[in-house]
Every structure is written in structure tokens, then in C-alpha cells.
């Protein structure tokens, strides 16, 4: 599959300072790709370079194989984006705002505008002035303008900011649907790590303008598992486990015992405990969360 977006050794200098160091990554059709990083890591700068708002000092950004620096108009026509907050013309209505952006791309009909309005659930308020909108409604309008021209690459900076839990879920499901069913490539950045985990297929962790790593959510859940056992009496259980698995990494926790164990071994461990008359109240599989992985990779920097 050809990548929708390619960043090749992208570098940005401002004055003598290097803001982004030789960033390379690829985003493919049908995937939701997350940008993660602490404040000031360079997420937004990277997004601005991808959409041509900022110049690139060296390296290359290719969208559908077309260079954004060399052929901006051609490269950008398949991109829909929200950069930072969805700022709209407040003195215009939501509909007039969409009309404004529709006129800037060929082939967006009135029907398409109505379709998108319905999609983001703004039918009732679309003819009101934007200054009367809540942040959540502006976010929806922002999404609508990004989708108007049926882009193949969607870039959303904090798309769920300002939405209520139902709205977040709705947008998340919709984005996943766009990626799966229509094969869009979607880039999202968010500081809500748990949300990213639910939304993204892969994500890049960026810190100090450098790519720390690209992880896939699937791989993350396959990593060495920890199991939390809620047992009684604890002391006796510890001896039993040590007898069977002498090399196992065991940590007594508040709620019980935490052990690192292969998924397939869990039933036999349970059987052993039961046969020794230990009461087993619960076995809980602990997957490594994105947050833990993130903190591990960025060295525990604060997440904004």
C-alpha cells in the first residue's frame, strides 16, 4: 500500500534553534494515527509543516506522493484539517462558514454541505451565527469544514476538545468508521492518552522535536502481561506460587499479588492455588496502558 503521507527527514529551524529534528514517518490509508508528546514537543509545528502553514527547513513532506512545498495547491486538495482550535468567522452563520470553505475547493455542492451538516449533527443550529455556538458545536463545525471536500487525509488537532462524553464517543466512532470504511488516513493529536488508545491504530511519540518511537496499539496489548490475583491468605499463596514458578517476578500489591505470567499459564496457576485451599476471589489481566508506555518512553515528563 502506498502511504498517504510521508515525512522524510523533516527539519525545522527557527533562528538558530532546531525545533524539529529529522522527523520521518508514514501514514497509510485506513489507519488512525496519533501524535503524542508533552507540551512544546513539536506536535503542532509538525502538523503546520504538513499542511503548508510553516515552511520546512530541510526534508520533504509528501501527500499522495506530491510535495507540499513544490506543488502546494495539488497536494493540499486532498487534505482536510483542524489546526489547534477550530476558529471560525463568528459574525457569519455556521452555514455561511461552510459555504466560504466550499467555494475554495472545486466540486463541493450545496447537497454535500447539507450532508456534512447532518453528519456532524448541527442541522438545528447551522443557520445561527457562530458566536452563539458552544465550544463543542464549534468543534463539530470544524470537523464539518474538514470533511466538506471528501479528503483522503484528515488531520485533527485535539478533535474531542470541548465535547461531552457522548460527543467524544460519537466522534471517535465516526473517525474509526471513516478510516475503516472509506479508507481515510487520519492523524489526531490529543493529550488525553486513554482516548488516543481507544481511537488510534498507531501513534508516534514526539519529544523535544524528535521522534521517540512509533508504536501500534495492538502490539502494546501483546506486551508481557501482568496479572493481579486477589487471594486469601496472601502469605500462603505467595509460598505456593514461589514453589511452582521459582523465577517468576512477584510483587505484593495492596489489592493482592501482582505476577508477570504468560497468558496461557493463568489457568494452571489458578488450579494450583485452588488445590492448596487458597481462596481465589479474582484474576485480573493488567495490560500495559498507553500512559505507562508514554511515561516510560518520554522519561516521565509531564503530559499537558
Amino acid at each position, binding site marked *: 500500500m502506498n502511504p498517504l503521507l510521508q515525512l522524510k527527514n523533516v527539519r525545522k529551524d*527557527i533562528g538558530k534553534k532546531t525545533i524539529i529534528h529529522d522527523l520521518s514517518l508514514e501514514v497509510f490509508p485506513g489507519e488512525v494515527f496519533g501524535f503524542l508528546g508533552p507540551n512544546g514537543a513539536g506536535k503542532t509545528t509538525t502538523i*503546520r509543516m504538513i*499542511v*503548508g*502553514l*510553516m*515552511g520546512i527547513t530541510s526534508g520533504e513532506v509528501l501527500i499522495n506522493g506530491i510535495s507540499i512545498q513544490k506543488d*502546494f*495547491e*495539488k497536494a*493540499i*486538495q486532498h*487534505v482536510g*484539517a*483542524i*489546526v*489547534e*482550535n*477550530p*476558529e*471560525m*468567522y*463568528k*459574525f*457569519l452563520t455556521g452555514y*455561511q462558514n461552510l*459555504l*466560504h*470553505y466550499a*467555494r*475554495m*475547493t*472545486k466540486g463541493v455542492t450545496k447537497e454535500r454541505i447539507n450532508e456534512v451538516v447532518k453528519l456532524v449533527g448541527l442541522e438545528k443550529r447551522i443557520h445561527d451565527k457562530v458566536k452563539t455556538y458552544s465550544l463543542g458545536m464549534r468543534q463539530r463545525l470544524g470537523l464539518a*469544514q474538514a470533511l466538506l471536500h471528501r479528503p483522503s487525509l484528515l488531520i485533527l488537532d485535539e478533535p474531542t476538545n470541548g465535547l461531552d462524553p457522548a460527543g467524544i464517543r460519537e466522534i471517535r466512532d465516526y473517525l474509526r468508521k471513516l478510516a475503516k470504511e472509506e479508507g481515510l488516513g487520519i492523524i489526531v493529536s490529543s493529550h488525553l492518552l486513554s482516548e488516543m488508545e481507544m481511537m488510534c491504530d498507531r501513534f508516534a511519540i514526539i519529544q523535544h522535536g524528535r521522534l521517540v518511537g512509533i508504536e501500534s496499539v495492538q502490539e502494546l496489548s501483546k506486551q508481557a502481561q501482568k496479572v493481579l490475583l486477589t487471594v486469601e491468605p496472601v502469605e500462603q499463596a505467595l509460598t505456593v506460587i514461589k514453589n511452582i514458578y521459582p523465577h517468576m517476578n512477584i510483587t505484593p500489591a495492596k489489592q493482592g499479588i501482582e505476577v508477570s505470567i504468560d497468558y496461557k499459564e493463568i489457568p494452571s496457576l489458578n488450579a494450583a492455588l485452588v488445590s492448596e485451599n487458597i481462596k481465589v476471589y479474582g484474576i485480573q489481566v493488567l495490560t500495559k496502558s498507553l500512559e505507562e508506555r508514554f511515561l516510560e518512553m518520554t522519561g516521565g515528563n509531564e503530559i499537558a
Partner: protein
Amino acid sequence: MPSILSLIQNENMKIYRRIGTWFMIGLLALSTLAGALIIKATYKEPKNWKAEVASEIKEMEAQLSEEKVPKMYKNHLEQQLKINEYRLEHNIKPVASNTFWGYLVDSADIIALITLFTIIVAAGSVASEFSWGTIKLLLIRPASRTKILLSKYIAALLFALCMLLLLFVFSAVIAAVVFGIENIREPYLAYQNGTVVEKNMLLYVMQVYALNCVDLVMMTTFAFMISAVFRNHSLAIGLATFALFVGPQITALLAMKFDWAKYLLFANTNLAQYIDGTPLVEGMTMPFSMMMLLVYFVIFNALTWFIFRKRDIAA
């Protein structure tokens, strides 16, 4: 890729969907009305215009007989003298402010107000996009920055054109109502190739309007440049209006002492100086001023374009 026309349509929507724009149009109508009413209330008709013109002729003759009259001024006096003599011969009254045509000619002064409004619109069209944050969504469309900038510039000039038409229509209607149209057939007297000729008054009014627009176009372009360079609405409006109102005075002061003042923008914006007046600095001609204006125009636009095209959109 969008056509420049749809981009201009967008800019027009952003200009005319704002209350401020309609406030400006209202203010323009009000100034036109107020001007007419003030003239109506204060203008005193000369009892005998023929006697007055005759005394003017005498005065001019006296001035011409003096020895040290600069050549440019001498020419100007001679022309006026001939025109006045023609008036007496053919019984053509000088155009007074309280007539239809007189008021239309005077209404050209209100173009300064239009210049101010156009500066506000032009400065806002770039700077506001930055302060609203909408510039980001505007520039990630398949339209080059050059096209977007051009559409904004054209929209601002269209706004000025629209205001000029409105001013003309307002003035004509108000003048017709307040002063009447009995003198509508009055000709305009011009001096051409050594003789006095009668010309169409409408053409003369249009000429006066056009000459007054030089300031308008130059200051709008200047405000547009400041707005694109500094992304600051107030700064652009402030600098452009300050230049508009103080620039000519400072230039005139400098012109009294230094010859190089003729290269300054404001030494050249008043093209009427070549038609019925004397040039600011001796030796200045109409082609010279037009050349200078063109140079400034190109510099302003090139700077705007160059900076806007290269700029990183941050914040």
C-alpha cells in the same frame, strides 16, 4: 483549484456581512446630507457675480504686471484670467457651491472619508484573519497565498469603488433635492491649447473624483502592506490614517526647503496641482508624479506579496 472570482465572493461576504460596513455606508450618506445642509444654511450668494469676476480679473492683471512672478504661477494666472474674461463675454456664472454641479464637485472632498473606510477594510482583511485565527483554515485550501492576497486586495478596491458610486449617487440626489437642477446645463470652462473651451460638467466631476482617488488607492495599498507585514489591524489603520492626514503637510514643509521632497509619496499624490494649480516643487510634471506613484505602488505591493507568501503561520 478555486477561481479568483469565488475567492473575491468570499471576501465580499466577509466585508458586507459585518455591521461595521453598513455603519460606514450610513455615515457616508449622513455626511453627504450634512454637507449639503450646511452649505445651504451658510452660503451667501454674491449680489452681482459679474462685478466680482471683473474685480478678480483686475487683481490678476495687477499680479501679472509684477516682475518676480514664478513662471508656473504666471501660467496659472493667465489661464484663470482668460477663463474669467470668457465668463463675462458669454454670461456664464462661476460654479457656486450651492448649485447641483457645485455640490457634486465639493462632494469629492468626502472621498477622504471613503479613503479612511477603505483603509479600515483593507487593513482588517489581512490582520483580522490573524487575530481571529481563521488564517489557518483559510490557507490550507487549494488556493495559493498569492491568489488569496490578490482576492483580498481586489475586494478592498471593489469596496472603495462601491463607496465612490454611492457617494456620487447620494450627492446627486441630495444636491438635486436641496439645490435644485435648474443649472444642470451649465458647462465647465477649461483652458486648452491657448483657448477657453466649454466642456461637459459631468466629465469634470468624474475627473475631480478620479484625481481624489490617487490618495485612496495609495493609502489603501499602504495599509494593506502594514497589515500583511505586522498582522496588526490597529497599527495598519493608525499608520495609514496618520500618513493620510499629516503626510501632505510634512511634505509641503519639506518641499519649501529641500528639492528632494519631490520624491516623497505625498508630493505626488495631488495630481490636481498640474491641472489647476502650481506644482509643489518647481520642475515637477504630471508624468514625473505618475512615475513616482507607480514606483511606490509597485514597492508596496511587492513587499506585501513577498512577506505574506513567505510567512510562517504560527500562534
